[in-house]
């Protein structure tokens, strides 16, 4: 009697397990959150750099985590807020000591570095529904997670640079609309010559600053597989992109802050006071302008188009899971939840632009519109582990050119030659 019951119990138990496995497997579309599953339990830690008392951290604590816990009763997510300026250093140090979080909101630029160090879980292998999730995000944002053919994260929030302009400054040039093409930028420069107003201003010569110009000119830093810079970085198109800025600078239509010095007028102050006609910047500028220059009406337009189109650079953060996580199923499920429409919408309400292509965020915040449009074609900086070194190298060479020590072509030739071995290191 006992034996029969036991066997029936066993079969029933096996069936239940099988059923829940099947259910969990079916549930993986990116849209709905996820199925409540009896298997998920325990706690995970989530490291992030949302500032204290900000709307983002409030949303995380009051909306997102409770929403996740409701779907999976009995689990807990411990969020750990780390000051932004220390997050990277702390990650490196903790990883060296073997102490890592389960889930991390990582700057897009760190993913390949962390992946190379063997710290991250390849999500395309770990998540059966990865393809669906990935396809729902902007391709440029997704590409920041790819390292050596595998995906080590998913986009979490994104942003890009668009053209911001001062109508008052444009009026001084007798122009009614912001420049939409390279030629219009050059023309704006000529019209503003001698007026004391700069046609364009930017505060550095690193990838974040110059890549929109290089890409829009039809050039690129490397080939599509990020293996070689020579032939790409120093191609005629890339040179033309940088040359545009250089010519403006030599004609004094671009201010000296391009060299990175901190004594000049910042891009935001200059725009608001009509000293600079145009700058490139991101959606965070809206609240900043509202606070520092409440009388200034911020207007935006697309990145000026060159022969390559209007292509800007992708910024933002990715969500990653650590290989040494002790509760990977829960970590992966939380990652999935962060990409759900509810979570993305909740964050979009507080200034974090969603990575989901088809989510209408302009209903949440109309100022997102131009950024969403730009994101459709925006590209990421090369997701290679050596990017910080490559970036600094590029900046140094270009600084040399702007300081008159070399021509732009020479600077890019030399930079490409020195970047090739760095790319080879992966």
């Amino acid at each position: 009697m006992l034996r029969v019951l036991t066997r029936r119990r066993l079969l029933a138990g096996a069936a239940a397990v099988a059923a829940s496995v099947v259910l969990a497997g079916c549930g993986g579309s990116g849209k709905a959150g996820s199925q409540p599953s009896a298997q998920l339990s325990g706690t995970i830690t989530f490291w992030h750099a949302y500032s204290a008392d900000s709307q983002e951290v409030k949303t995380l604590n009051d909306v997102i985590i409770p929403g996740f816990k409701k779907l999976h009763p009995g689990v807990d997510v411990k969020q750990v807020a780390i000051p932004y300026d220390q997050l990277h250093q702390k990650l490196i140090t903790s990883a060296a000591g073997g102490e890592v979080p389960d889930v991390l909101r990582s700057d897009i630029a760190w993913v390949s570095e962390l992946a190379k160090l063997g710290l991250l879980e390849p999500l395309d292998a770990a998540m059966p529904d990865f393809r669906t999730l990935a396809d729902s995000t902007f391709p440029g944002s997704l590409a920041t997670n790819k390292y050596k053919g595998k995906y080590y994260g998913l986009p979490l929030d994104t942003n890009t640079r668009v053209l911001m302009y001062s109508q008052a400054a444009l009026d001084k040039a007798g122009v009614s609309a912001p420049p939409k093409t390279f030629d219009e930028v050059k023309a704006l420069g000529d019209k503003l010559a001698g007026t004391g107003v700069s046609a364009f201003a930017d505060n550095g010569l690193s990838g974040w600053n110059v890549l929109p110009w290089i890409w829009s000119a039809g050039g690129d830093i490397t080939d599509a597989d990020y293996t070689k810079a020579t032939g790409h970085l120093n191609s005629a198109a890339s040179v033309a992109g940088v040359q545009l800025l250089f010519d403006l600078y030599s004609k004094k239509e671009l201010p000296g802050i391009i060299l990175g010095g901190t004594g000049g007028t910042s891009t935001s102050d200059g725009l608001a006071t009509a000293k600079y006609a145009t700058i490139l910047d991101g959606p965070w500028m809206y609240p900043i302008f509202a606070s520092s220059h409440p009388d200034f009406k911020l207007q935006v337009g697309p990145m000026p188009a060159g022969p390559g189109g209007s292509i800007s650079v992708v910024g933002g953060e990715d969500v990653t899971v650590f290989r040494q996580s002790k509760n990977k199923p829960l970590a992966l499920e939380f990652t999935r939840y962060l990409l759900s429409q509810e979570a993305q919408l909740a964050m979009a309400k507080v200034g974090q632009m969603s990575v989901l292509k088809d989510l209408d965020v302009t209903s949440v915040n109309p100022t997102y519109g131009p950024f969403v449009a730009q994101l459709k074609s925006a590209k990421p900086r090369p997701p290679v582990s050596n990017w910080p070194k490559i970036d600094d190298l590029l900046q140094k060479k270009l600084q040399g050119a702007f300081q008159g020590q070399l021509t732009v072509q020479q600077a890019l030739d030399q930079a490409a030659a020195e970047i090739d071995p760095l790319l080879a290191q992966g």
Partner: protein
Amino acid sequence: MSVQTRRYRRTRTVARLVVLSAGAALLIVPFLYMVSTSFKPNSLVFEWPPKFIPHPATLANYVQAWGANDFARYFGNSVLVACASTLATTLLAALAAYAFARFRFPGRSLLFWVLMLGLMVPSVVILIPQYLVATWLHLNNSLSGLVVFYIGAGVALNTFLLRGFFASVATELDEAMEVDGAGPMRRFVALYLPLSRPALATSAVFSFLAAWDEYSWAVTSINDPAKYTLPIAIAQFQGQHATSWGLVFAASVIAMIPVLVVYALAQRHIVTGLQAGALKS
């Protein structure tokens, strides 16, 4: 005192007051700016030119800073850690300084420079090795672990400071006590400690400030937000793209109060120095 001397003294005093006031004014301008901004609502950037009178003035930043995320707990954590570190560091440094100042032993110079080495190596490169040591000794993610590290980091400077003061205590007094049969510890407690009150107070002020303000190691070692200290709390108010400076400044002003209290308390000991008393029997 003659009328002339009195007038001379008064002119001297007035001159000193003028110079000191001018100097103090120059030095406190940034602090005044900090305080005034902390009373301004919602300022995301540094205003330039600075307006020193907040208009409208508001306490909102202080309320928000204190109420945010367990700020009171971080404050409490910092108090515990700083007090414990200060007591322990001053004690250990005093013992070591006594040895360096008043004893002759093999390796004295070498040991002293080894201690000084601790001050000279940039802390950035020892961060990961320290983290590994702390992991091995289970000193990470705990307030007592922080205290141990702050003591280790602070003994070098304070020993150096106290050594100079102990060495300048008149040796005749030491000799007299030894002739009377007092052992080294008794001389330490009965002679050196009382005579070095200004130095000990100064050492306490420095240790407290160092422990109170220490940020880099705290943020690295602590993973549990319940154990965060104040500098971490303040840094958390700084955002990636924009910072609410009013909030940061309000938090910073709150954080400065204990340090100034400790300093003010210590000042009495620093300045009521011992003058002729050191030489009297």
